[in-house]
């Protein structure tokens, strides 16, 4: 029952939210809803017996599709990430003003419902439904509340991902007709045996859909523009949680279903990922805009996760699991800071910023913590994940790991450069009258910073939580 609740709470509260016209009512309603979801998620995952975590009911008997939900370790972790992120996002942007707030928060909550659905669905058609349900509200969020070029940019994003989803749908249909019992159930998909040629072909139909979502080079071109033009709270959802859909989907729907093809094509995919890491890192160095810098840095991080997934060993997979959660936390933290700076100072360009540390010391401390996590310094959460992933990649191929390692150095270059240009030096016109962050943002960032350090020192809970998924993947191979 727990997964159903996790979907229904945001879905229903989201629909109700469309009828709330008053800004504060809508905000409080959304915050309340996200806290209830968080409570249910924590209670369900840690305190209820595990049979509560599955749900199965008839949906489309003629088609062989069931409304079946279930949570494995990875599902639990990502639901937790989604449930934790939304209250933080709502809290951090509480002071932001939106026109038509009811609609804004309604769409945000619908996105949350779609995301959780993706993470818990164990029926391919249902998975496809949620995959799209998560996309459509985001399209409206970005197009209605985004920046200047929002309409064209969001449209590109939508068409890109929609082509990917449709290709995946063709793949799902193909697999459906090859299941022995004509069913969309995940378990039936795991039992499919395809001829090598077919397996290779269908593998790419799925992988392109997931690669666009992650995004992996060369399918990434929608991403920097979309992140830049979206309203920041939507960008947090996009980069904090939504990109995890792609990685999650590879682990859940790709590797076990196409065991041979995913070994066969691992080399190509790892080369693409590593190329993307270097490429994105190099571009990030040249950026003058906080949002675009974080966007490119995000491509680099995702590239590493993608490469580690396909290196097919336990260490790498554990790293991916940990990093999925940690990257969500870190990147949301960075976006919050970017949003605070933009809201207060009216610019996101480094060249127009400087000396903020003197005016806003609390912000400075928290930004430095987030930035260090972005570089994956030891004692921050990202270190463990990246270390394991590099270890996994190294076991697969030393040279790949060596080339990918360059991106760590580049990450330090662009991140520290950003910190330096924003925080230090002399104050400039924009930062002359800057004040420190408001209490709600401060609280959210402190919570995030505590998570960064706590998980950096003691990441074992995450490893334990996702142990079953990692083992299952390794057994399947």
């Amino acid at each position, binding site marked *: 029952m727990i997964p159903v609740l996790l979907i229904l709470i945001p879905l229903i509260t989201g629909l109700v939210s469309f009828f709330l016209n008053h800004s504060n009512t809508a905000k409080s309603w959304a915050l309340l809803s996200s806290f209830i979801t968080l409570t249910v998620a924590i209670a369900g995952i840690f305190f209820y017996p595990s049979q509560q975590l599955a749900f199965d009911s008839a949906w*489309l008997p*003629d088609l062989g599709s069931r409304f079946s939900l279930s949570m494995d370790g990875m599902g639990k972790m990502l639901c937790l990430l989604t449930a934790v992120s939304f209250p933080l996002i709502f809290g951090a942007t509480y002071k932001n003003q939106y026109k038509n707030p009811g609609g804004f928060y309604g769409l945000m909550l619908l996105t949350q419902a779609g995301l959780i659905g993706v993470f818990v669905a164990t029926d391919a058609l249902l998975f*496809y*439904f949620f995959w799209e349900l998560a996309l459509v509200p985001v399209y409206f969020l970005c197009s209605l509340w985004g920046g200047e070029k929002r309409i064209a940019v969001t449209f590109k994003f*939508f068409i890109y991902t929609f082509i990917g989803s449709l290709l995946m749908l*063709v793949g799902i249909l*193909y697999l459906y007709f090859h299941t022995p019992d004509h069913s969309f159930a995940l378990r039936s998909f795991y039992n499919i045996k395809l001829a090598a040629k077919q397996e290779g072909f269908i593998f790419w139909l799925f992988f392109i859909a997931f690669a666009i979502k992650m995004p992996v080079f060369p399918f990434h071109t929608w991403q920097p523009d979309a992140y830049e033009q979206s309203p920041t709270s939507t960008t947090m959802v996009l980069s904090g949680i939504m990109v995890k859909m792609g990685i999650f989907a590879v682990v859940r729907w790709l590797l076990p279903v196409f065991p041979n093809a995913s070994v066969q094509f691992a080399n190509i995919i790892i080369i693409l990922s590593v190329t993307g890491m270097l490429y994105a890192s190099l571009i990030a160095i040249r950026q003058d805009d906080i949002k675009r810098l974080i966007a490119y840095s995000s491509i680099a991080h995702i590239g590493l996760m993608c490469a580690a997934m396909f290196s097919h060993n336990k260490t790498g997979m554990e790293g991916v699991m940990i990093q999925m959660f940690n990257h969500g936390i870190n990147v949301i933290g960075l976006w919050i800071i970017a949003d605070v700076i933009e809201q207060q100072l009216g610019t996101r360009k480094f060249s127009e910023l400087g000396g903020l540390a003197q005016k806003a010391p609390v912000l400075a401390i928290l930004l430095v913590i987030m930035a260090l996590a972005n570089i994956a310094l030891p004692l921050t959460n990202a270190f463990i994940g990246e270390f394991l992933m590099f270890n996994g990649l190294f076991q697969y191929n030393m040279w790949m790991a060596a080339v990918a390692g360059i991106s760590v150095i580049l990450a330090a270059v662009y991140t520290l450069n950003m910190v330096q240009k924003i925080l230090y030096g002399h104050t400039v016109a924009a930062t002359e009258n800057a004040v420190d962050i408001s209490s709600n943002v401060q609280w959210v960032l402190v919570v995030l910073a505590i998570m960064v350090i706590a998980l950096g020192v003691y990441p074992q809970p995450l490893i334990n939580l996702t142990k079953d998924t990692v083992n299952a993947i390794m057994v399947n191979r």
Partner: protein
Amino acid sequence: MNAIILSALLGVVMMFSGIITKNKSNITKIAAVGLFLLLVANVLNTYGGYVVHVDTHSLLNFEKFGLFFNSIAITATLIYVLLSGKEIENVGVNTAEYYALIFFVLCGVSILSSFNGLLMLFLGIEIMSIPLYILTGTDKRNLKSNEASLKYFLMGAFSTGIMLMGIALVYGATGTFALGTTSISPSAGVVKTSFLEVAGLLLLFVSMCFKVSAAPFHFWTPDVYDGAPGVFTSFMATIVKAAGFIAFIRLFDTHTDVLGPTWKILLAFVIIATLLIGNITAVFQQSVKRMLAYSSIAQAGFMLFALYSNNDFAKEGILLYATAYSFATIGIFAILIKMKDYTFDGFNGLAKSQPVLAFANTVFLLSLAGIPLTAGFFAKYYMLASVVKTGGSLWLVIVAVVFAAISVYYYFRVIQAMYFKEGEPETTTITTGFKTGLVLLAALIILLGIFPSIVLNYFYF
């Protein structure tokens, strides 16, 4: 049989209703009641209840598939009259006659869904088409409407000629009008096809492509749809088109083996051409009405998949497709004809001034684009699934989904205009009843998008 007889009778009743009452809205009410009776009669027929029993000497074959399609067509017409009745009244002075013609079209539709011989096919096509030529030209003082009507008539007459030629050739080869008999002799294991039959079937294929506006026989469609009064375009583009497909599928259900493997290649060519022309041309339109004309060509490309795969999935799918496509298109046209300006810019800012209309329109457009949670998704899903089920032809499916993604472009342009652009759209007066109707239709489309079995279970019973 009920639907054929009753719709013809109701057509006559509608003609006389113009004498009894001069009040136009009363005529609409009579038509709506008539459609409801027609629906009841047809549903009764589905369960074996006959008003009159006529022995058709197997010229007509009333099976579930056809009868159920009748129900869909009549329901769609009922929704259409309820939503756009006001606009039908506003087209011209002869309201009663318009409704009479609509009922005659429905009579043709009911014949097409149940014909069992080529003669009946011809009769059905003609009974359906001739009233449409008139309806297209009802906006008498508008030059475009006249042009459209003449064009439609000439093209229609031409394609009917080709059809008759095809029927004659097939008759010459097989010696019968009945469907399902071929000149192939099963003896000796050698398949010997008759040249006459193949030529006849190809001519039939061409004429049916004309009727459903499949490329490269689609050239009449944009001009006719654009020139005809908006309300009647809505009727033509939905119910009539779907009926054409049902006839197409019934006709080629059993004849494909005569044409051999060439058939699939031919059909694949027509499908790709239709998808290509429909989608690419729709992208460049400035008028929403013209865009919908091209989009209807593009949707025809998808419906042709049912013909291509020709299995149980295809049969179920075409019914669902007809439902989803008709409902959504009727909804969009109902909104479009309330607008003063038919261009994309005419929709600018509709979400501010008419939020209910904009919401309903969004649902309809999402359904046409095939986004999940709407009926249109399952319609497309069934079409794709039917082709995947045949085993090969995965490349054709991939081509189709790429075009489906392109179609998002022009459908979403309307959404962008309504929600993301500023403007003061001018509309004619919009009543609460109209809004309620639209919301109910949108809710129905979403319901079908979650439980498509509602339509399909009915088919199975």
